[in-house]
Structure formats: structure tokens, C-alpha cells
């Protein structure tokens, strides 16, 4: 994992001082609400329904145990004993006091963390594959490039006041687990015909009000040109992106209005002018790569026989291992998911006690590192198979072992009306109701892999448009209604979900979801997944049942 050098540390400390001054100026009344809004957002501070919300960067999802303990401390000292993990691998606190935020940032800086550019119309935190470096389908570890991008985007002076927010995701594996096709820029590490590894560059993808799948602007970009190409795209966007209407200001609209060909031409022309000046040194790439060198794996990890025995002896453990662990590139190791989707807790939330305990488990079983995922769970990525049983026992005590990863109750859910000032709908309440209706784990496992995403408003923070089942809260004359979509996907065969029919009333949402799942159970072929069945039969069989009584 990347460790800060003196430059990194100085920068985050100076940022704390700067933000402290900005906050004090605002509290004294020397800068306006509007001006402070732009400044605080660029430091992750929103003003929410109840209190300010602080979003902290989880650089491409990677955290260490020391950082986790610091989050626990912040939750205890400055918040109400919990924090929330987001779909872009960041961490949110919902109850800090504005005047205390500079102190929180100072605490964060002491463990190499910050909240820089986690919000606002600027270059945001770069996200990546939560299985980077350990998955079996990897072409190359994307994390060194994420770190290079993190540094390049941090306090970039030219691109701090973009038309709209700008998100970059990097994937290094065959299966896209980072939703790169739905980012402003998506980068895939790919191998070309000559056997060299470079980037396939996608542009103009995005979710929100107008979900669009990104298009390939450059099929193969040499690594040394990574930053010059990003800079060329950003300069064209900064100069030509629409600023007259915030709903048309994302790069996806510019690409759509210009057409990919014209947009790509402008980028190419700009790129050729800056390419040589911004070339990435091979030595620099190598130096960053050494910071992501594999940990000291034990070579005899496969010798253990306990794991196999426990699988035979303990059904609950076997179920957890099946759903909540995945294969690791090193024999004898697995990556273990910690489900933040326990039936009775809001999706993605974690208490200070859990954070501290997980920090200890990470130190014991996974080289002191933790990752957060795009679907709001955590991972201990490097667990020896022999350690899985004791790990499971401890996670179970912590209520972090619900065996539901990738299943119907592993919902992505936004904070909704309970916290967010934009929301139309109480997402957390609906998620809880669905969870209660699906309380039979055997039934959940029978349904198998399915992604249910639920957002409380059109901004689509929970990516409902790419959920296999999407639920979107809408407001009709002060009443909450819910639009359902089927067949979305953010993986390789990206798709935007198709609307099932008219929005349903709040008290009908859970019924609609269980009806959809029943149709699937009755009509699926052999081991056909939910998404595959939707692709095969379309939405009509589901629609007929959901609206049968209307």
C-alpha cells in the first residue's frame, strides 16, 4: 500500500491549514455562502438535512488498520459513533460540526488521509477494482496507476472549477468490477497484439439523470502517455463543457453533443501538443509499483487441512465461505468480504466498535490492510485459508458475516431522506422492509447473484439505472413513488435498466420486488441468473405479474 513521502504529508497538512482559514473566514462572515460552498465542497463538506456531512477519500478503496482506527476515533469523538461507506469507496460522516471539521482533517492527515476533492465540480477520488492485485483474472495491478492519477488530480490548479464533477475509474482485470463504463473517464489495462500492456480509454460514461455508457476514445494508450492524455481530455472539457445548465454539464453531454469523432479529434490535437512534456518516466512508474508489491505470502498456505474440515463440519461457515469469499491468485489464500448489509443495519454503515475490531482482524489475518468496495462492503484481501474459520467466527460476533455478498439483500442504497437534502424518498426504510421480506437466507441463496440498487432521487447515487433491479424514489405532489427498472449492469456487458412500468406506491415496493423474484424462480432455466433471464425474456413476464392487480 502506498505510503506518503514528505511531499504528500506536507501537502495534506497545508491543506488542513488552508481549510481552517477558509472555515474561519466563513464563520466570521468574510466570505459569502456561495463562495464557501465551492470551497467546502472541494473538501468534501456538504450541508445536509440535519448537519454538515463530511466525505473522506478512500483512495481507490485502500485503507490500513491505523486509518480504520482513526475513523473509529472520529466516529466516537466528532460524530454519532458510526460512519458510512459509499459506492465510490469513500467514507462519510453524517453528524460533524462545521467548526470541528478542520480538527477532523488534522486527525486524518496524521494517518495519511484527507477529504480533498471528494465533492464539488472538480476531479474526484479515483476508484478501482476492489480485488486489484489479488484477483485471478488480472492483466495488471491498476493501483500504481490509480496512485499516479491521485497525485495528478490532487490540487490540479487548472481543473478545480470544471463545469461539473469528474470521476475516473481504473480496472486492470478481465471482469470490470469498477464500473469503468459509467465514469467520466474509464481506463482498462489491456494487452495489445504486440504483447504490451497499456490503457483502453473510455470517455463520457455516467449515471445520474442521464445514464450513458462510456465510449472508447482510444483503444490503446501507452502507459507513459497516461497523464498527457487525461490532461488533454480535461482541457477540452474545461473549455467546451456546458456551463449554462448543471444537468447538461457533465462530459457525457459534451461528447454526445459534439459526437465522439469530433470530441476525439479535439482531444487528439491537444494531446499531440502536450504529449512529450508530460511523459511519465518509467522509473517513476516502477517506484510507485514497488509500493504495491505483494505482501509476504506464506508458501505453505495450501498445506492446511482445517479449512476443508470446517467446511464439512459447519454448514453456516461453508455458506459464508461460498458467498463471502473469493478465489485469490496465491494458492491457499482467499479474499474475504465483510458484509455491511446485515438485515437490521443501514447498508454501508459501520460503528466505531466494528471499525476498531476490523482493524484488529486486518492486522491478525490480512497484513493490516482493508479495502472498501463499489457495493459498500469491505474486504480483507489476503486471508490464509487456515484463518478463514477463526475470522468468520469473529466477524459473526461483530454482525459482519451475513452470507449475502452478491445476493438480493446486498443492496446498494443511498442515505435517502433520512440524511440527504436532495432525496425524494426514504431509501433506508425501503431497504429495511425489503430485507425483512427476504429474511430467509436459503431463499436468497436460491435466487443467487442479483444486484438490487436503490436511489432516493434522480441523482442516482446508488446507481439504480445499472442495478439488475433498480429502484428510484420520485416525488409526485409530495408523495413518495418508486420507479422500477430491470436488466441494468455496470460490468463488461454494460446496460441501462429498462423501466418496468408506472411508478409504484411506497407500500407496494416490497411486494413488487418479491413478485419479480418469484417470477424469476418460476421461469428461470437451469442455472440461469436473474440478469440472463431478463435478457432472454425481456421485462414483460415481470411486468404482467407486478401490475396484475391494477
Amino acid at each position, binding site marked *: 500500500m502506498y505510503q506518503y513521502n514528505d511531499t504528500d504529508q506536507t501537502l495534506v497538512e497545508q491543506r488542513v491549514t488552508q481549510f481552517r482559514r477558509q472555515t474561519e*473566514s466563513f464563520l466570521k462572515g468574510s466570505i459569502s455562502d456561495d*463562495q464557501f460552498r465551492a470551497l467546502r465542497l472541494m473538501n468534501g463538506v456538504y450541508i445536509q438535512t440535519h448537519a454538515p456531512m463530511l466525505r473522506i477519500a478512500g483512495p481507490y478503496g485502500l485503507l490500513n488498520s491505523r486509518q480504520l482506527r482513526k475513523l473509529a476515533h472520529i466516529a466516537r469523538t466528532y460524530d454519532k459513533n458510526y460512519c458510512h461507506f459509499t459506492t465510490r469507496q469513500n467514507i462519510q460522516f453524517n453528524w460533524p460540526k462545521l467548526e470541528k471539521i478542520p480538527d477532523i482533517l488534522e486527525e486524518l492527515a496524521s494517518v495519511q488521509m484527507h477529504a480533498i476533492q471528494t465533492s464539488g465540480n472538480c476531479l474526484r477520488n479515483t476508484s478501482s477494482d476492489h480485488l486489484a492485485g489479488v484477483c485471478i483474472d488480472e492483466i495488471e495491478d491498476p493501483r500504481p496507476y490509480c496512485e499516479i492519477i491521485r497525485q495528478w488530480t490532487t490540487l490540479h490548479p487548472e481543473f478545480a*472549477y470544471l463545469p461539473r464533477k469528474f470521476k475516473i475509474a481504473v480496472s486492470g482485470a478481465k471482469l470490470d468490477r469498477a464500473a469503468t463504463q459509467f465514469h467520466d473517464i474509464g481506463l482498462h489495462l489491456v494487452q495489445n497484439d504486440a504483447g504490451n500492456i497499456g490503457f483502453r480509454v473510455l470517455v463520457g460514461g455516467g449515471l445520474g439523470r442521464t445514464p450513458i455508457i462510456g465510449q472508447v476514445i482510444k483503444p490503446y494508450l501507452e502507459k507513459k502517455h497516461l497523464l498527457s492524455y487525461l490532461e488533454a481530455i480535461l482541457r477540452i472539457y474545461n473549455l467546451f463543457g456546458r456551463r449554462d445548465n448543471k444537468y447538461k454539464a457533465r462530459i457525457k453531454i459534451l461528447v454526445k453533443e459534439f459526437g465522439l469523432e469530433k470530441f476525439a479529434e479535439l482531444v487528439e490535437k491537444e494531446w499531440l501538443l502536450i504529449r512529450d512534456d508530460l511523459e511519465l518516466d518509467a522509473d517513476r512508474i516502477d517506484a510507485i509499483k514497488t509500493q504495491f508489491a505483494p505482501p509476504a505470502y506464506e508458501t505453505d498456505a495450501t498445506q492446511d487441512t482445517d479449512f476443508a474440515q470446517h467446511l464439512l463440519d459447519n454448514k453456516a461457515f461453508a455458506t459464508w465461505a461460498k458467498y463471502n469469499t473469493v478465489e485469490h491468485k496465491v494458492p491457499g489464500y482467499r479474499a474475504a468480504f465483510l458484509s455491511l448489509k446485515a438485515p437490521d443495519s443501514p447498508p454501508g454503515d459501520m460503528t466505531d466498535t466494528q471499525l476498531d475490531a476490523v482493524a484488529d482482524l486486518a492486522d491478525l489475518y490480512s497484513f493490516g490492510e482493508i479495502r472498501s468496495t463499489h457495493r459498500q462492503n469491505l474486504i480483507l484481501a489476503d486471508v490464509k485459508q487456515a484463518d478463514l474459520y477463526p475470522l468468520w467466527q469473529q466477524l459473526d460476533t461483530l454482525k459482519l458475516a451475513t452470507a449475502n455478498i452478491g445476493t438480493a439483500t446486498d443492496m446498494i442504497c443511498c442515505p435517502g431522506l433520512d440524511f440527504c437534502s436532495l432525496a425524494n424518498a426514504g431509501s433506508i426504510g425501503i431497504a429495511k422492509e425489503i430485507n425483512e421480506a427476504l429474511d430467509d437466507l436459503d431463499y436468497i441463496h436460491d435466487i443467487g447473484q442479483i444486484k438490487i440498487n436503490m436511489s432516493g432521487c434522480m441523482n442516482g447515487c446508488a446507481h439504480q439505472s445499472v442495478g439488475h433491479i433498480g429502484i428510484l424514489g420520485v416525488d409526485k405532489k409530495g408523495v413518495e413513488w418508486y420507479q422500477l427498472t430491470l436488466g441494468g449492469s455496470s460490468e463488461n456487458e454494460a446496460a441501462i435498466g429498462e423501466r418496468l412500468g408506472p411508478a409504484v406506491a411506497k407500500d407496494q415496493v416490497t411486494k413488487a420486488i418479491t413478485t419479480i423474484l418469484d417470477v424469476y424462480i418460476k421461469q428461470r432455466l437451469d442455472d440461469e441468473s436473474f440478469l440472463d433471464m431478463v435478457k432472454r425474456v425481456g421485462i414483460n413476464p415481470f411486468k404482467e405479474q407486478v401490475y396484475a392487480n391494477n
Partner: protein
Amino acid sequence: MQIIKDKQIIDDNWSYIADDTELKDGNISVSLARWKKDKQQLLKSTGKIGVRIGPADSVEDLAADLKDIALIELDFPAFADGRIFSHAWLLRDRYNYQGEIRATGHFMADQVFYLSRVGVNAFSLEKTEDLPVALSTLNDFTVNYQKSIH
């Protein structure tokens, strides 16, 4: 009126001449449209000439004339209009402009640091009482990650 120039607070000796106003002696700046229209007349004036450009203007349009221009004012209609930052970078880096680049209009003291990093060396703030704070922000960071002008 005072401004910041080259990290010092100094008296300003330039006047902006609106499009519908007569030109006058001394150092004057005009809009890009007026520069294009009255270029020959402006070149004959006794003082130095500056051109004010807004976010929607194209810096490329001015590239061939830069040797005749002593000041370029980058005028913010609103502080969030980030096109100004790219204009400054293009002028300094791509077109190697050596004259004064001054931020004018509606921008914040807290933007002065980034502006200086993309090549702006003079700042005319809306409120002159903000000048000392703006000047101090130039020292906000002693380190950075990107190659930039300064």
C-alpha cells in the same frame, strides 16, 4: 486602486475602456472585440495596450497579436467559471506570453493560488481589503504534484 502584481501590492496604472467609450491616453485595455476592430488605431496610441478576454473568448484568436499586447486581463463573470484557468495556462505555456496576465472581475481571494500556478501574475480583486489575504494565499502550499507555470 491597488492590485497584486508579482507578489506585491502596488498601485494600478491601467484603465479599462468600455466598448462604447472613447479611447484615451495612458495604459489602456479594451475588449477582444474592440482590439480586433480597432487594432490599427490602438497600435498608434501613446500608452501600452491591454486586452480583456472573457471565458467564452478563444485565446487562439489572440495568439498572433501577443507581441503587441502588454497586458491580458482574464475577466471572471463568476468565480466558478474555470475556463479562465485554461486560458491562462494556454497563454503562458502554449503561446509563451511574457506580458502581464491579470485576473479581474468576480473571483475569490482563495482562487489566487491556483491562478498563480497557471500563470496569472496580477490580481485585481473586487474588494481591495482582500488584497493582504489574497497575497498570503500565494504561500498556502510549498509543494505540488503537477508541472505548472510557477
